[in-house]
């Protein structure tokens, strides 16, 4: 005998409200995870120093098939190399249209530092150390290794997430130096060796307009990007579910989220740092 179930009132409204509440719930749990991770950074420094060192080596050089092609360093270097060369290709040719191709060195010193290198490095970091972290943590979650860690009394957030955030911040310094050097070298090589500008002209305008303060801010951008990227990626890895395909989807969602978040972080920081005046003086 079947008993009738009273249908709920306003089913559509309830469904909408529940999905709304679910969205807010997700925001809340993410924020809580980020809070936990940041709070556990101290504990990670005290208890899991060896793990941090191991992760720094792993993030810097990459694992598995990525290590074969040279690891994170080579990938970051390659991506910024191509975007630096873009400055030469588009900058030189567009400046040559109005007869001011001498200013290509200036374009390299200005656009690479403020715009191109931070954005490209953010993309490269999300793809390499970020996606790698999500894939690792997601596989651990699916294999119930994270639960096993907690059963053994190891603080999983501190041991897995906080250590990765620290390692990411440590690794980004040298990585971003490589990125900067590569983008400068590529722009210089393209302009002087391929388009045939004299190196003296290029270096003069490059050195005149290369602003050390801007460089420092550029590094600040890179470090803040690395920290938000690692936070986002560890969250998605930590909460992966749904078997092998679930790990892959978590990586995809994490890459999407971290690209958007890091772009927004770069934008807001740039607006805050350079502001209305722009901190740029043509006449020195």
């Amino acid at each position, binding site marked *: 005998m079947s008993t009738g179930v009273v249908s709920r009132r306003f089913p559509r409204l309830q469904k909408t409200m529940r999905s709304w509440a679910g969205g807010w719930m997700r925001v809340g749990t993410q924020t809580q995870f980020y809070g936990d991770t940041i709070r556990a950074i101290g504990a990670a420094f005290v208890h899991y120093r060896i793990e941090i060192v191991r992760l720094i080596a792993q993030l810097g050089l990459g694992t598995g098939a990525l290590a074969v092609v040279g690891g994170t360093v080579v990938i970051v270097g390659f991506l910024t190399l191509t975007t630096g060369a873009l400055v030469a290709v*588009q900058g030189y040719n*567009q400046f040559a249209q109005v007869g001011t191709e001498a200013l290509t060195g200036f374009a390299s010193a200005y656009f690479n530092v403020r715009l191109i290198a931070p954005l490209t490095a953010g993309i490269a970091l999300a793809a390499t150390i970020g*996606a790698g972290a999500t*894939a*690792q943590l997601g596989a651990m979650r699916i294999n119930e290794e994270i639960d096993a860690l907690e059963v053994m009394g190891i603080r999983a957030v501190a041991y897995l997430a906080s250590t990765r955030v620290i390692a990411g911040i440590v690794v980004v310094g040298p990585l971003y130096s490589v990125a900067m050097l590569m983008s400068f070298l590529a722009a210089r090589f393209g302009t002087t060796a391929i388009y045939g500008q004299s190196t003296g002209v290029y270096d003069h305008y490059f050195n005149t307009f290369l602003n050390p303060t801007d460089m420092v801010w550029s590094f600040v951008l890179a470090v803040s990007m690395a920290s938000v990227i690692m936070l986002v990626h560890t969250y998605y890895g930590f909460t992966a579910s749904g078997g092998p395909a679930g*790990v*892959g989807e978590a990586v995809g969602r994490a890459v*999407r989220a971290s690209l958007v978040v890091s772009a927004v972080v770069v*934008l807001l920081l*740039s607006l805050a740092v350079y502001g209305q005046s722009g901190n740029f003086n043509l006449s020195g």
Partner: protein
Amino acid sequence: MIRSDAVVKPMRSIGGFFAMSLDTLVQIPRKPFAWREFLYQSWFVARVSLLPTLMLALPFTVLLVFTFNILLIEFGAADYSGTGAAYGTVTQLGPIVTVLVVAGAGATSMCADLGARTIREELDALRVMGIDPIQALVVPRVLAATFVAVMLSSVVILVGITGGFFFSVFVQHVTPGAFVGGMTIITGLADVIISLIKAGLFGLAAGLIACYKGISVGGGPAGVGNAVNETVVYTFVALFAINILASTVAVQATL
């Protein structure tokens, strides 16, 4: 002694990738074309990519316009800010942002989906039933990624220029008429067409890499995770490599 494994394995994957790409290109005109799978995949890629693409396009173009306008205002040429916004968005940001998201969202899901099927030996089952997985699964996915990348890149360009317009006009006090008038000074039809071709090439590369990584996966959940990670890295590398070549050709063609 050099481990021959370390040398042979990447070579073998490169060879496998080209073999699969060739198979895919040969199979594209062959009937029956998997329409249903193609439409479903296109819808899927568009659905997961649309919102992140727009959310990524806005900060990128606003940052470009902001940096460029600082320079122009210093020169006293703020009226040309539309020129820079249009040129940067059409030639670089449009195709790149699109494919970052198509690769990050669509290609990863494709790779995860195909990888899970490979692990569950569904692809072998298809082969046993006489269905070619390349024709049934890979071709529609690759075409869907290409198609959606082209379609999305035009949306990105529109949204980007609109965002740049509002930022320039309302935050940096550029004259709206001058912004709109300056847009077409160095950006013409040829640039737009090349930009769409670029987006199509990027989408094709992303789809091929994702499918290859998906059908050649091995080693359980960790294997799928690594395959997806490699998909992201390789598509981004391929994207930037293709971009510099295509931009060089485009500059020669349009100037």
